[in-house]
């Protein structure tokens, strides 16, 4: 039965009938207007499925734009900070885009289908910005979010699952490559991408075939340890991988209400995504000024003593000068380290500063304050060779 309009506060994804049946923890969250699973059974169980078997995540609420037309590549080169001409058809790229002040609006993935046909997937909605960027270009920008259902299949056995599903040759798909397969008469898009830092794929299909894909996948993965996972487990995996999340490591530049809280690509340690040599792009002049004058912040990984997660901690140096904040933190089961991603004021990201995290912990009505020494480290805390190997392990 359809809910009354005033009751319909959340939308359901094309996989809802399947995820609802499996969500025994009844732990849901609102993602871009859709109700999605936070935890199916137990977050640890789902996390270990990512790292040791295969886990399925419903990412249908991802915002998706189709960008087509003779100027599509020129347009994306104006919108994005990276050079889209270096992305060949059939490849996927990570990308960010900035406002006029050179502050990051959002990050996302760009799929180049053909020379003049792209998809841009992101966390937040940006249609007005994308359309205004299109002024002066022969390009069409359309929100196609509801026309594509998506699943992430992540983990060391994910390739084997897809082989069992009958996707011949999928093991030869390189990281950041994509291809189209036939699944019982349905076109199935497969890209070797993901948000876990592990071997994994993302699967794209027409919403009408979504439930069929889910059922076939679960059946094919039964002997490969397949599990559904919710966003809580995914978030653990992405912190271990050192990936940034919108509205966590940065706030979307066209949605934030306090302009001084925004971060530039350099301040998110994403300078490698900025190509000054490709011609003008939005924010280029501001970023050139920043490169000359210096950035305010650096985004770093932290290795923290002890085993108490430094969630939301201030980072101090020496006797107590505040130099930054933790944006994401956890005990990493795979790295066996107490890790965090932190935004530090420059130059305290450099070696030679005695940093410590101020961890507050409440244990049975008593607050403990733990000043835990920490060190700046590579934030790719977990980066296994299997993530990059081609052909991918398929057994």
């Amino acid at each position, binding site marked *: 039965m359809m809910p009354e309009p005033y009751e319909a506060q959340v939308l359901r994804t094309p996989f809802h009938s399947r995820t609802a049946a499996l969500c025994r923890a009844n732990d849901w969250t609102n993602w871009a207007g859709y109700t999605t699973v936070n935890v199916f059974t137990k977050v640890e169980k789902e996390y270990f499925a990512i790292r040791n078997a295969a886990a399925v995540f419903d990412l249908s609420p991802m915002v998706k734009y189709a960008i087509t037309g003779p100027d599509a590549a020129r347009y994306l080169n104006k919108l994005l900070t990276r050079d889209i001409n270096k992305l060949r058809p059939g490849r996927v790229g990570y990308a960010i885009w900035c406002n006029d002040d050179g502050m990051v609006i959002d990050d996302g993935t760009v799929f180049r289908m053909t020379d003049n046909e792209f998809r841009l997937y992101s966390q937040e909605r940006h249609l007005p910005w994308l359309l205004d960027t299109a*002024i*002066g*270009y022969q390009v069409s920008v359309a929100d196609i979010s509801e026309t594509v259902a998506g699943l992430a299949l992540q983990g060391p056995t994910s390739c084997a699952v897809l082989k069992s599903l009958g996707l011949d040759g999928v093991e030869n798909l390189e990281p950041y490559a994509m291809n189209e397969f036939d699944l019982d008469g349905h076109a199935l898009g497969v890209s070797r991408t993901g948000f876990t830092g592990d071997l994994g794929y993302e699967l794209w299909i027409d919403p009408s075939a979504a439930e069929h894909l889910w059922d076939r996948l679960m059946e094919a993965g039964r002997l490969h340890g397949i599990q559904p996972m919710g966003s809580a487990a995914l978030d653990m995996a992405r912190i271990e991988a050192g990936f940034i999340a919108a509205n966590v490591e940065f706030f979307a530049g066209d949605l934030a209400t306090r302009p001084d809280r925004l971060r530039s690509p350099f301040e998110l340690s994403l300078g490698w995504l900025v190509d000054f040599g490709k011609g003008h792009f*939005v924010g280029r002049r501001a970023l050139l000024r920043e490169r000359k004058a210096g950035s305010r912040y650096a985004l770093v990984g932290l290795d923290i003593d002890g085993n108490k997660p430094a969630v939301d901690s201030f980072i101090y140096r020496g006797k107590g000068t505040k130099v930054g904040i933790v944006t994401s933190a956890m005990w990493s089961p795979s790295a066996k380290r107490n890790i965090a991603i932190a935004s530090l004021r420059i130059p305290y990201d450099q070696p030679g500063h005695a940093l410590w995290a101020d961890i507050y912990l409440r244990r049975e009505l008593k607050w403990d304050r733990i000043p835990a020494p920490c060190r700046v480290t590579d934030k790719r805390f977990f980066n296994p060779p299997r993530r990059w190997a081609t052909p991918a392990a398929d057994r």
Partner: protein
Amino acid sequence: MTGGYDVVIVGGGHNGLVCAAYLGRAGRRVLVVEAAPRVGGCAASAEFAPGFTVSAGAHILHMLHPKVARDLDLAGHGLRYAVTDMPTVALDPAGNHLVFKGALTADASLAAHSTSDADNLAALRRRLMRFAEVIRGFQGTVPPRLGTADWSDRLGLGKIAWRFRRLGRDDMREFLRIAMINIADVLDDELESDLLKGAIGLDAILGTELGPRSPNSAFSLLYRLAGQANGTPGALALPEGGMGAVTGAMAAAAEAAGVELRTDAAVGRILVENDRAAGVELRSGEIVRAAAVVSNADPKTTFLTLLGAEHLDTGFVRRIANIRARGTVAKLHLALDGRPDFTGLDAAYLGGRLLIAPSLDYVERAFNPCKYGEYSPAPAIEITIPSITDRTLAPEGKHVLSAVVQYAPYELKGGWDAARDAFADKIVETISEYAPGLAQRIVARELLTPVDIESRFGVFGGHWHHGELAPDQLLMMRPVPGAGQYDTPLPGLYLCGAGTHPGGGVIGAAGMNAAGRLIRCENKR
């Protein structure tokens, strides 16, 4: 390829010429490229019928900045006035015409319409002229930027605050009270004569997409009152030979300063090299290289057509695309085989500015159809017959009539080609109600709709101010933040047209200010 210029200026309108002259006097090697066969832009004289010449765009000189006239010695370069104290006549359908000797200064004819309005008007005039004085003070300076740590910006903001503060408590309150409201409310509070209020209401909305009951129309009147002719605030003048005489003198001043002028040279695009303006490419394909480019074109044409959005950031493009610039004014030129007669009007006033705006309601009703893409069937009109005081414009015994007509929406339902003649007939009909027999005297006529103004002068939307003159598009907001100080996000590209501070009207201050800003910015390089 032509090259070696310090500055190339796109467009030889009055601001482009003034900017060129100042830059030439500062020792810069300057080239002005103008698309038309003659310089002048919207401030030009044109022969629209054999032997009949008229000011093709603006037709009264009432805002020319005195510093521009003095610095460039426009008188020395041939600027003569046919008249500098042109009276204004509010035409009355009943023949009891109301005569103004100066801005908001009616003569004894007002007594026929009201016993108390003479005093009321004098009080209103004193107050509005004080406010206009504040605005006038900003015209000759580069507006400060908001939110910077730059000392000159802070000083500029301080000067604005100080000018305002000097008004005193009561005037500050009154200024704030009327700054954003409509002129009809202000006039209804102060005056009683419909004819008087209609005439002042028309002045408030001339050249804008406002009716007398639209917000900001009171401010629009203050902006107009900030003008001056030959040193007299609010006065009206006619240059001998039409407005082309003004730009002719400016061109002569520029050439005397070493500036090169090229006509029939339309710019196709602004060249960009290494993220810097490097010159222009003419539509003929010829490349003209220069160290800096100044655009006299309106902001939308400059950024979206000549430069291209690809060189600009999205937020900036969005602001440019959102500039309010929909033309509402048509210009009618009539060649007459004899002097027209206006019923009940003393021939001494025929050389004045004649207004058809018998009441605020009349003007507001004229505005109503414009909102929905239709022209006014009974338009509000500002008429001049410059040949009365300037015999160079028409053959002996013959005359030219020039009328500014509102409202004529740029985006007319069904398009202007199908409606041009019918609208011209309506205008002639409307004027004929005051001047019977006018139609029989017409030997030639020309109507310029906003679409014609756009194609003839290259002005986006046919908006003769390059964008509405309202508080959201003035001072550091004109044309948009990020280009409010004449320099633009693209290094080496500057603006100098009516789309920048202090806006439309033949002032020349934008050209003067832009030249100063360019010299300051380029010296810093």
